[in-house]
């Protein structure tokens, strides 16, 4: 799929006005940094044969909580840690429900998605929380070595999780778990522990994304990131991660996220109506998955 992205990029550079400017490139990278971060951990989730619909709610809730704690304590670090803690707790709960409680992942995270979204609204009566501490804005709005900090964070996630999935036992065991859970268990893989770690990590990363977003917007808003989970899963699938589990590389995530970002950006530059954009996004996902099916059939499955 990296090839598809390259072709797409080339096509857009030629046909879409305003596409190939440095400012626009930066804009794309910034846009995809949120989805990109969470897609790294969603990769593990899908590779293990599971689902996580709660990430959007965690993004929102963590942002709100971080903002409130920063305002109340005057400390950026305490606020950030509180936000991350929210993510960790939600992720851990998901992991325990699914691994130990035996609840279907889709259902469990569907439930936590609602619960956490509700909590995000409740903690400040549904109002957004404007952050007064200007030091906090540095996280989302400054540059480092020519690129916005959120982009570097996203890049960092790609590197870390890319390494984890392909070069560590934890990553390979995740794929074994998704590829055949019974065989993985009999081979001595601690399947419950891995699931719990996957969901907890995902909670933390989603929270981080939420905190960065909060910093960029200078306020914690309980309404953000609705439907983000579907975007993240689409990006992964678009890039080649299998929904049934056992198949997934970081290159899949990178290509999926970049393709999605490029397409959205191009559609904006072409001044497409948002309704048309929705239709187009859906069609592109279908085409990409169809393309993947054909490729799979060709490899003799």
């Amino acid at each position: 799929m990296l090839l598809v992205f390259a072709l797409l990029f080339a096509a857009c550079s030629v046909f879409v006005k305003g596409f190939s400017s440095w400012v626009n490139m930066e804009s794309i990278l910034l846009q995809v940094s949120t989805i990109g971060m969470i897609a790294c951990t969603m990769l593990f989730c899908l590779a293990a044969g599971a689902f996580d619909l709660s990430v959007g709610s965690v993004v929102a809730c963590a942002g709100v909580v971080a903002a409130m704690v920063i305002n109340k304590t005057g400390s950026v670090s305490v606020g950030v840690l509180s936000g991350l803690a929210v993510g960790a707790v939600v992720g851990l709960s998901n992991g325990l429900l699914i691994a130990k409680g035996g609840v279907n992942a889709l259902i469990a995270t569907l439930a936590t998605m609602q619960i956490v979204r509700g909590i995000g609204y409740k903690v400040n009566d549904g109002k957004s929380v404007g952050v007064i501490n200007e030091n906090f804005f540095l996280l989302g709005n400054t540059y480092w070595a020519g690129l916005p900090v959120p982009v570097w964070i996203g890049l960092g996630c790609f590197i870390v999780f890319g390494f984890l999935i392909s070069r560590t036992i934890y990553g390979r065991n995740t794929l074994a778990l998704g590829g055949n859970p019974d065989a993985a268990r009999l081979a001595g893989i601690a399947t419950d522990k891995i699931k719990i770690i996957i969901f907890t990590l995902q909670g933390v990363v989603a929270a981080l994304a939420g905190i960065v977003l909060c910093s960029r917007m200078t306020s914690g808003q309980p309404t953000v990131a609705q439907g983000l989970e579907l975007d993240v899963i689409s990006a992964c699938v678009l890039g080649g991660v299998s929904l049934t589990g056992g198949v997934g590389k970081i290159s899949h995530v990178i290509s999926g996220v970049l393709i999605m970002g490029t397409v959205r950006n191009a559609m904006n530059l072409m001044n497409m109506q948002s309704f048309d954009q929705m239709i187009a996004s859906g069609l592109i996902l279908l085409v990409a998955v169809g393309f993947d099916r054909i490729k799979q059939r060709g490899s003799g499955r």
Partner: protein
Amino acid sequence: MPTRLVFDSVTKEFPGVRALDGVSFTAEGGRVHALMGENGAGKSTLLKILSGAYSPTAGLLQIDGTPHVFADTAGALAAGIAVIYQELFLVPEMSVAENLFLGHLPAKGGIVDRKQLRAEALKHLAWIGEEIDPDTKVGHLPIAQRQLVEIAKALSRGARVIAFDEPTSSLSSREVERLFAVIRDLKSRGHVILYVTHRMDEVFAVCDAVTILRDGRHIRTFDTMAGLTVDEIIRSMVGRDLKNVFNYSPRPHGACALAVQGVTGPGVTAPVSLQVAQGEIVGMFGLVGAGRSELLRLIYGAEERKGGTISLGGVVSDHTTPRAAINSGLVLCPEDRKRDGIVPVLSVEENINLSARRHHAAGGFVLNTGWERTNAEKHVASLGIKTATLATAIGFLSGGNQQKAILARWLSERVKVILLDEPTRGIDVGAKSEIYGIVQKLAASGVGVLFVSSELPEVLGLADRILVMRGGALSGEFNRGTATEESVLRAALPGGN
């Protein structure tokens, strides 16, 4: 009028491998034609071409003189071909009658005509002389009867060529006899019957001709069983003489490696106690459903024990998970390799290294790719695992090679006791012999071996001591020197002694 099936220079190529190479032979109607060969010889591929699941790269089939190349399975069905696989393609939740007429239920104006459905079903079931209530859910029938329903379904579609793929692996001996009776009846009606099997006794019991494939090529077709010996068949299959498949040699036994005391749990009705010494090979025989696999799983910790203790090397072990067992040196090679053994999408290399890699990882965390490659290469070579590359997904390998890879997985670990559940099921004679050698070498190095097998010759040929299970409890124990086929079998049969 007997049908005639001709395979004419059938070739099938996949990327990187030629599964079939110009296979030509004739199967006459009114005869049972065995198709034999080592795993990877091409039997399954040939059946898939027959059924239309694959299209040949070159060559064609001829049925009664008409050439055929099927684009899909519907074409094969229409031409009168039916393949009865081990995994029966019936819908468990639907009734026998509904399964028989799957896709073409008798209907009046779009609504299923239940009365006619039942009547037609009874008619077809009568063809195979089977008294099954057509309204029974297929899922409630024992495998043997489901198989007969499959045959009836094939006949109802006008099949003239019926191919069986290892049909008896899950059947009791009485059910096997029933199946043979049905097959002989089909034979007398002029159908072409193809019979794929590894079991020599069955070939001589029910077949009239034998075709042998090796490495995708047709080696020989014996048109008559008269004067044919097992040795000759084996020689054609492996290309060499296998005088003694087991090559058994005794070895010294050490201290007790595994002691099972009073273990009970799902599938084990009476407390089981047994011991395996270092260097000893204990074979466990029994009929399907006797509880042997369940016992192994309880010992391993894959299922929760209700009662009893397990001791490894004299020390009581409270392992309750496979992981804990492996850490104590106790490993299990499961019965169903597809469901419980391999991770199909991962490579051969990863499947072999799946458990042991953590001992060699940097910081217990980061993969040691050098070790992984070397370890995989070592075992692929020493066990003779046939695979295009180490990176090939293991799902593409034949059953026998998959089994070897799983053995390699455990040979990569520090093993004190190994539990093997039907280690040579679905594996050809040549590979079986290799596995027997590996097991004996393992035992000679001080490992305690407990293996479950449904093949009496295998248990008698490989084990130092034989245990028999019946109805969830131990029913007999024999030493190698004094055990006979009759005495062991009697201990396994309900009401035997």
